[in-house]
């Protein structure tokens, strides 16, 4: 059953170039880390898919990079505003891992704070393009941070269970290094619940819907 509610904005916090949009949770379940929600973007036709970043008591937090009209509209919300939200959607991370290492790049760190909380604060390695972007690392406990030209895959030791989210190139590098990593991927999405077939990505040699099969996929 798809759960949809109008949620009220509790607060917005600047985190480097990003905005942490904190919503009063209402009756929505935060779901499993790595799952996502569709957020109404005021004045736009389509909602925007956002993975859950933080889930403190009574709230749902989303880390948003204002890169287009929809994300800019979300970052322009004010406390007290309301927006339609539905979810949680898709498949999140498997949490039955022995030696978890969280790997994140840029805005791809968005699902990691909630994931970290669910796993009891495991080590994390995070890569950013600038010190300003790296301010978002404060959201992830126990994190080692690097800034370009150092890349995050240089910080991954052997023998760990990797749970990663970040740009495609980073995920591909992680996959080559750790073939059984869990990777949270991203694709443009109109609906988030399997209706539009817009978010197709290649999975096992076939084009499949990321919202239904993912967004977290086993690398192998």
């Amino acid at each position, binding site marked *: *059953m*798809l759960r*949809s509610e109008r949620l009220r904005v509790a607060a917005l916090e600047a985190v480097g170039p990003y905005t942490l949009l904190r919503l009063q949770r209402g009756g929505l379940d935060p779901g499993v880390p790595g799952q996502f929600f*569709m957020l*109404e973007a005021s004045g*736009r*036709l*389509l*909602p925007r898919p956002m993975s859950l970043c933080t889930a403190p008591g009574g709230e749902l937090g989303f880390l948003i990079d204002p890169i*287009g*009209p*929809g994300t800019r509209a979300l970052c322009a919300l004010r406390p007290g505003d309301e927006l*339609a939200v*539905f979810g949680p959607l898709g498949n999140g991370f498997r949490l039955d891992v022995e030696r978890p290492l969280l790997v994140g790049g840029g805005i791809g760190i968005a699902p990691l704070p909630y994931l970290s909380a669910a796993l009891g604060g495991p080590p994390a390695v995070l890569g950013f393009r600038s010190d300003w972007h790296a301010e978002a690392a404060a959201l992830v406990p126990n994190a080692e941070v690097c800034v370009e030209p150092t890349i995050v895959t240089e910080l991954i030791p052997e023998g760990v269970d990797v749970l990663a989210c970040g740009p495609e190139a980073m995920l591909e590098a992680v996959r080559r290094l750790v073939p059984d990593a869990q990777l949270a991927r991203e*694709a*443009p*999405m*109109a*609906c988030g*619940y*399997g*209706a*539009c*077939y*817009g*978010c*197709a*990505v290649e999975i096992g040699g*076939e*084009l499949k819907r990321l919202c*239904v099969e993912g967004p977290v996929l086993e690398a192998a």
Partner: protein
Amino acid sequence: MILNASGCLDALTAPDVARALDAFVTKTVTPLPRDGNAPVRIAETDVGMLNSIGLANPGIDRFLVRNLPELAKLGVPLWVSVGGFEADDYARICERLDDHAEISAIELNVSCPNVESPAQSAAQIVAASRLATRKPLYAKLSPAVPDVTEVARAAREAGADGLSLVNTIRGLKLDERTLRPVLGPAVGGLSGPALKPIALAAVHACHRATGLPIVGMGGVQTGRDALELIAAGARHVALGTVLFGDPSAPGRIRAELAVEAAGHGWARPEDAYAAAHAELLPFQAILGKRSRSTL
């Protein structure tokens, strides 16, 4: 009756949404499986969205074995959308659907903007399909032709029982920064509010030209939009892009439609059928003229 536009809902992943409809229309089924077009497949525009999915579907064999039995369990009347490249493709699929009592109607998608156009005309496709099935046949037409009523008339002569109006029309979006096409195949089908006046025009004209039952679709966001399509001559209304952002749209729009119809003095929404074609009473004509002259 409120349906979904083909390709805008997967009843198996969202059965509750499908059950809120009066009939579920499948994604277009083709003779062979299709992966669909390379990503990127969707892009939002200022007043709509573009898609270039490219008829991704399991093909008729797997559809019949795997999907149809599951769809039949939903308890919602089923319409199957059929696609192909030759009139024969359509006819062969129609023939295989004909024996399935769980299928209420067939929609012939002769107008997908994201694959090569069928080599044959809509009328040839309808004629070949007519010979292959006794089920009600709806021809889904593109408004991107010089005169949609010509195609509609030809479809009726070839044996179509109804029309689905309209399919999306081709559009292009360029990336904000790179000025390159956003979509993988460059162009895609435009849907959403931008399509509504085009859909209204096609429904209005084809109702007058053919009198056939019409499933009106294109940019329906609200009950008011649905009422306008009915007034223009649609017997049924299909929801497309609105389902993406609002899975509760079937129930919401049904309720809004009832309120809108009542607001115009109609007991039921269907009483508004073809109201846009009604002759104006003399005093209405005078009022109309007066209001125009004061503009």
